[in-house]
Structures are given as C-alpha cells and as structure tokens.
C-alpha cells in the first residue's frame, strides 16, 4: 500500500528536477529546508529522525538535493521526507512537507479491533512493517 502523507502524496513520486524546483521555491520564500527519515510510517508518527541539521543558511537547492541523495544512499529502504520550516514570528512551523524517498515494498497497515466495555468497539492502525524491531523493518 502506497503511503500518502504530506504534500503531493497523491501524485506520482517527484523526479529530482521537480524536487529541486520545490526546494528552490521554499528557499525563495525564506524557509529552512530539512530532511528526515523513518521506518515507522504510522500517520501519527510526526517526528521522524533528522538527517543532518536543518539547512538554515542554504542559498541554492542543489545543496539540499545532494543531502537527499546522501540520505537515500544511507537509508535506501526508509521513508524520507523534506520539510520546509518558516521561522517568521507567529508562524514558526512547517509550511511544506513531502516524501522524497520510500521503500521498494510497502506492506501497508492492518486494522486491529478491540472490544471495550459494553459493546464498544475501538479501532487502531498498525503498520505491518512495525511488527519487526526498528532497523529490521522493510
């Protein structure tokens, strides 16, 4: 099952030129670009591992693309996303976030049901990948 999180996630995967253009746009807006990766794709897992520091003083997108390529080489079977952080006072949060790398096989999520008191039914999502320990998934 294809993971759809963040911007552009219903589009086909962006090519490197498209990623470059998006990052270029972010830098034009004055946002700081950072790269994160994870092997736990649960939608509520918002804080992924950082790959290097956020690039606050970056001027050109080529530098960020190079980091992305390095991250892909290091973690070929992880999810990788690019975040653009807007440091403007009063905003101070992510403006844009999109996936730039994903594992070759995505097993998707299973729905687990739990019987509560009375006839209450609780539901939770669990990624099949997370049945194995961290680092062994995918």
């Amino acid at each position, binding site marked *: 099952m294809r993971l759809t999180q963040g911007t552009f996630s219903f589009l086909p995967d962006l090519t490197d030129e498209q990623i470059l253009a998006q990052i270029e746009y972010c830098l034009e807006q004055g946002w700081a670009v950072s790269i994160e990766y994870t092997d736990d794709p649960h939608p509520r897992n918002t804080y992924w591992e950082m790959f290097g520091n956020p690039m606050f003083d970056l001027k050109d997108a080529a530098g*960020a693309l190079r980091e992305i390529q390095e991250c892909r080489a290091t973690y070929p079977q992880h999810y990788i996303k690019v975040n653009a952080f807007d440091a403007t006072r009063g905003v101070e949060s992510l403006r844009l976030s999109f996936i730039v790398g994903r594992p070759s096989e995505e097993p998707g999520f299973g729905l687990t049901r739990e019987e509560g008191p009375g006839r209450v039914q609780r539901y939770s999502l669990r990624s099949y990948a997370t049945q194995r320990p961290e680092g062994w998934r995918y």
Partner: protein
Amino acid sequence: MQETVAPHTDQQAGDEAQFDLAAALRESRVSEVLEELDRELVGLAPVKSRVRDICALLLVSTLRRRAGLDTEPPSLHMSFTGNPGTGKTTVALRMAQILHRLGYVRKGHVVAVTRDELVGQYIGHTAPKTREVIKRAMGGVLFIDEAYYLYRPENERDYGQETIEILLQDMENRREDLVVILAGYKDRMERFFRSNPGMSSRIAHHIDFPDYSAAELFEIACAMLRRMHYELSPPAADALREYIELRRLQPNFANARSIRNALDRARLRQASRLFSQSDRPLSRKDLVTLEPADIRASRVFATQPSSDSIDSTPQESEP
C-alpha cells in the same frame, strides 16, 4: 563589438547566422559591474584586464553554446594571489556578480571561509564540515582565503589533505553548481600548487594582484575619505602623501588595509583634537577636515623623521 545587428537564432545555426555580441552584453548587464569595478578599485590594471578577458570568454562561450558549438561549461575556478589589502576579496565579490549575470552561477552569493571552517579537529570531523561549507556555497562562489594553510606538509596526519580531496572532487564533478576561488600570498600559493598539482590543473584562471603604487594608495585614501565624508586640508594631503611613502617601507604593510587603519587613527586624533578645543563652537568645516597634525602624530613619522616634518620629534638616526 562592431557586429551588425541581426536576429540571433537559438537553434543550430549555419555559418551565415550572425550573433549579436553587443546585444548579449547588454542583456547580461555585466558592463555595469565592470564599470563599477573600474570606478571602485583604483589601479589594479592587470587584474581588471584579466577580469575583462574572462568576461569576454564567458560571453562568447554563451553565444557558442547558443549556436550549439559548446556543451561543456568552461572551468571557472580561479586563484587570486597577491599581498594583503590588494583587493582580492572585493574582486571576488564582483566576480561572483559577473558570473551570476552571465548565468554561470545560479545565485551569485559568496561564501568566504578560511582553514578553520573547512578542516575538522578530529578523525571524521573534516568531511562533514567541508561538505557543509560546500553545500552552503552551492549556486555561488566559495572564496577560500589563505588557501595554502589547507596543506601542511610538516604534519602528514593533517586533516587539510582530506579537505583538499573533497574540494577537488566537487570542483570537478559539480562545476555547474560551484565556483571556487582560492586566495593568498603569491609565493605560498605557488608552493601550495606545486605540492597539489591536482588543484593547480583544475584552476583555469590565475590572477595576480600587484601592490599599489604610492599615488594609487593616495587616491584610495581620498576615495575612502570621500565615502566617510571627510576632507583633507592641502597641508594634510601633503602629510598623507609623505605618510604613505614612509609606511610602505615599513614591515607589515597591508596596502589599502593599512591606509584604512591609518585613516581611522587620524579620525580618532581629529576627534580628540576637536574635543580639546571644545571652548569654541565647531563649524561644519571643522568636523569634516583632517589637519596635518592628525596625520603627523603617527608613529610612522616618529621612527623615521623627514626633513620637512613639522612635528617635534628629535632627529635621531635609525639603527
């Protein structure tokens, strides 16, 4: 630039097709930067002509690319050699502007670094540090001041070598992303290039910055004073000329930088002179004028007294 105006074609053109160099020059707005360079920097004639040559080469190579003749971008890495205070950094800034306007770098910013920012403290520290700097400089110009410090032959475990290797790799593979300018003293840079032939062969343009003559230094001083809204009284101008002559012969002379420091000290003295005369109201003229006393109080005159000097230092002979 006497070419006839003709509509230039963007595709593969026949031999008859004409390319309008003048229009390309206008389009790039690079002549503004060149004029600014001429206006801002006194002297440095060989440097200016080299910069012009490089401009012409890049412009022609842009046109050649339009005509489908060239595909490889030319190598743009440079080395600026010369004594301190001869305008290497200023020219590097202008160079970045020129490259930006001609479309050879995408952003045209300059990242100026020295050894400290590139070389790490321990094993495994250097590569990420250098990569970080290169990442920041991408799309612009990486200006490495005193680049010869990167290579320390006396310590074979020095991490500078690692930096050089990473730099070389990126200078070769990421030519369209990064232009590297190395700067430093001429003799030490030559030694650096001799021991790193890979670096030398990847640098296309070696530009040497000559020292300024006394007349040029005086002109620079006048330009600096104009920018700071100061004036020299005629006797003070003579004193400054004399000061420059003497200062040039002394050790640690850093060309324009020494002159700027001297002027800063003269301003200081002028301020305290005005302060001591606070009993009378000051006119605008008082505030902007430097008097000979402000300049002649310098220790440059004290160590080497000249015959027409008006200050009262005893006429002792130098050992």
